[in-house]
Structure formats: structure tokens, C-alpha cells
């Protein structure tokens, strides 16, 4: 499993990449591997508020559905619409496949470094 150093991680297997006061959110290599072939992503709307530790969307594989939790509280600025057409991009490139871009961030969950996350998931 690969966990890039420049990202932060949650215990629910999301990654977050901060760029200034905005952030991109996706799911980790571990998460996509556990879920298997992903076939559908449900995302919020641009302008929706998201809350740290609460679900903002879900991903579905052939066999299962999983909530995707937001590591930060803020407002959705942008969606990765490519994922709506082809969820399998998350399997092939979990760190290129961000789900949402969040701005106006006011709070965040406890986050792990890549080393900590690696120790957590192995």
C-alpha cells in the first residue's frame, strides 16, 4: 500500500491535501482496495456545507456501499465530476481521484501523517 507523505489521513481511510486555506479530499489506497471495484460515487452539491467527522457522500462497489467522511468543516467549492462518470478511476488512482474541494474551513478532525496511517493500517 502507498500513502504519499504530503497527505494527511483519517481513521476512516480518507486522505486530505491542504492547499493554502482550501483542501482536496479523497479515499486511500487501503480504502479502495478493501471496497473492491468501485462503480458509483454520490457527491454533495457545490455550496453545500460539510462537517468534520460526518459523511459527505458515499462510494459503492459491486458488493458494498461505504460512507465517505469529511475530515474538515467547510463549504464545497468544487466536485470531481469525472468520478461521477467513472468511479473506477478511484481504484486505479486513489490519490489523483479527489472527491471534493473544500473552502472556508473552520474545523478539522484529528489527522494522521502517512507514517502514522501506515502503522494504523499496515
Amino acid at each position, binding site marked *: 500500500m502507498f500513502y504519499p507523505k504530503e497527505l494527511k489521513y483519517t481513521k476512516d481511510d480518507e486522505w486530505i491535501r491542504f492547499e493554502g486555506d482550501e483542501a482536496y479530499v479523497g479515499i486511500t489506497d487501503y480504502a479502495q482496495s478493501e471496497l*473492491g471495484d468501485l462503480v458509483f460515487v454520490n457527491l454533495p452539491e457545490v455550496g453545500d456545507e460539510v462537517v468534520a467527522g460526518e459523511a459527505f457522500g458515499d462510494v459503492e*462497489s459491486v458488493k458494498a456501499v461505504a460512507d465517505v467522511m469529511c475530515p474538515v468543516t467547510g463549504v464545497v467549492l468544487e466536485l470531481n465530476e469525472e468520478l*461521477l462518470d467513472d468511479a473506477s478511476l478511484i481504484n486505479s488512482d486513489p490519490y489523483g481521484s479527489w472527491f471534493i474541494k473544500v473552502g472556508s474551513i473552520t474545523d478539522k478532525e484529528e489527522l494522521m501523517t502517512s507514517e502514522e496511517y501506515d502503522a494504523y493500517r499496515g
Partner: protein
Amino acid sequence: MEKKTPLYDTHVRYGGKIVEFGGFLLPVQYEAGVKAEHMAVRTKCGLFDVSHMGEILVQGPKAKDFLNLILTNDYTDLQPGFARYSPMCNENGGTVDDLIVYMKAENDYFVVVNAANTDKDFAWMCDHKIDGVELKNVSDEYGQVALQGPLAEKILKKVVDEKYIPAGYYTCIFDADFKGIPVMISRTGYTGEDGFEIYMPAAKAPDVWEALMTAGKDDGLIPCALGARDTLRMEAAMPLYGHELNDEISPKTAGLGFAVKMDKPDFIGKAAIEADQPLKHRRVGLKVTGRGILREHLDVYRDGKVVGHTTSGTFLPYLGSSYAMAIVESGAREIGAPCQVDVRGRMVDCEMVGLPFYKREK
């Protein structure tokens, strides 16, 4: 505690992701993943461990009468070397299980039932046994693999003499030889594709598995697991016990009228099934026209009213979109009609469609 099939170590060695299913530890997928395994069966070939299935021997001078009493299908004209599917009903017309009966010889039948129902089925059969019938649960003695896909026959011919390969769908050869291993080979399956199910002494299952994997290597044969077994059977609209069928759902409601022979003198459940005409509920296919994946136990709406619920649903890899099977009020069942399914609070647009979703070209 969960049981292991004789192929458990093989699954681990092949990288299978192990889960509990029907009381057994079985792989849900291998490294290729559900989609690739599904596509292999539709386009080339896949190999499944189905050793968890139950096997019950029904023997004796009254064996045929017994089958005709406890099963809804008619076994009067079944010949040795042939197989026939049937639901098994309770007195209320609900379904105890669905199974396949293979006729080995006069007064000698081999019945294959769903893993999770084996003990229940055997107890049910014993409770309704008539004089002149012997029943034996031999589930632990057999391993079973399913070789499924358009290249199945080509691959099987590499390891088995042609005379041991059953030619017709739902036929079987009981005394086949597989590289010195005594096996039963039937031309059956649960994928909607051509293929074979091979029964062998449990301890020999790994040898049969390895020989088939080697034989099929150049033809794209890959190991396939429960995830693909479920998506394949769903694409072919085959019912799965506990979903489209259960102790309360009658086979007629589930769309299995072809296997319910009302002109038989009598069978358990006949009176109740007769009384349930016209049918209040029926099975239907749903195709998602909006966005979302359907699962089981979701409410189906027409014109704002709940008319039924889904029994199975997922993304079907070969067809490339999301489908479900549902049981709905007969009056609301109209092929082509728009409907909605409540997916965790979100209404997803669907269309009622005929079954099966996929039918192979012959």
C-alpha cells in the same frame, strides 16, 4: 464455527479475500476483482469452488413418489443421466429451498441444495419421508467446482475424455474419470453461461482445481469467487434463496411457475399455491435510469406509493449498469413503466424491465 471447504488452503494461496457465507469460509473475490472475474465467465472461463453446496441422496423403491410429493416440479419422466430444477415448498406455499435433482439410476437420486439450507432441508425431508425411501446427507463427502464460460468445454476436454463430457444442458455423467479421480460431471451452472459442475471426493478437490487451472491457463481461465457468482446469477436473473425466495415467498410469486406443475396429483404446498391465484405479488426486473446502485430491501414506488421491495440489486458488470430484482404488487407490475427506488433517502429513477437481464446467445 464456520466450516472450511476442501479448497480453503487453495483459496488462500490464490489470494482469495475470505468471508463467511452460508456457514462456510469462502473467498468473495480473488486479486482480479469481481468485475474481471465476472467478465472472464462471460467471455472466456472462470473456476468456482462450490463445495459448500449440500448433497442429499434420495434412494429406494418410492424415491420418485417422494420427490413428486415434496417438490413442485414433476419427476415422473426424468431419465437417468438427466437433471431437473425444482423449488421445495412448505404447506403455505412458501419456499423451503430450491434445488437440483440428478437421476443416477432407477430409485437413485442425487439432490443438490443450498449450503445454508442443507440441515433445514434434510430435516424437512426426514419429517416428510414416506415408506420405501432412504435419505442420506452426504454433504461433507463431496467437493464441487464449477467451470463456467464459453470456453469451459474446450478446457474440460484437455483433462477429461470426451465420452465423460455431458453434451446437453442439464445432463450429467455419474461415473466420469478425471485423471484417475472418480467424478460426476453435469452441464449445469449458476451463471447464465455454458459450463460444468464437477463433484468429486472432498479430499480430491484441490487436485481437480489445479488440473483445471493448468489446463485453462492459455484460454484465460481465472479463479472466481462469491462476488462474481452473485453478479453473474443476478444478470441471468436466477433466484437466490434468502433473496428472491424464502419461507414466505411462493415460487410462482418469484416467477418460477415453469417449475411448479399444478397438474401433478398433489405436492406439499399445492393447495396454498392454488389459493394464491391470481398472484398478489410478482417478481420484476428494475433498471436504473437515474443515478445510483440498488441493493436489496429497498422500497419500490410507483406514482408516489410503495408497491414492493427489491430482493437483490447491484451493478452488473457485463451490462454495465445498475439493476435490481423486486417483488411488487401484480397490479403495479408493468414492463416499461417508470418507478422509483428509495436508496437511503434518495429517490432513484428506474424502469420496470423483463427478466432475465442477460441471456447468452446459443
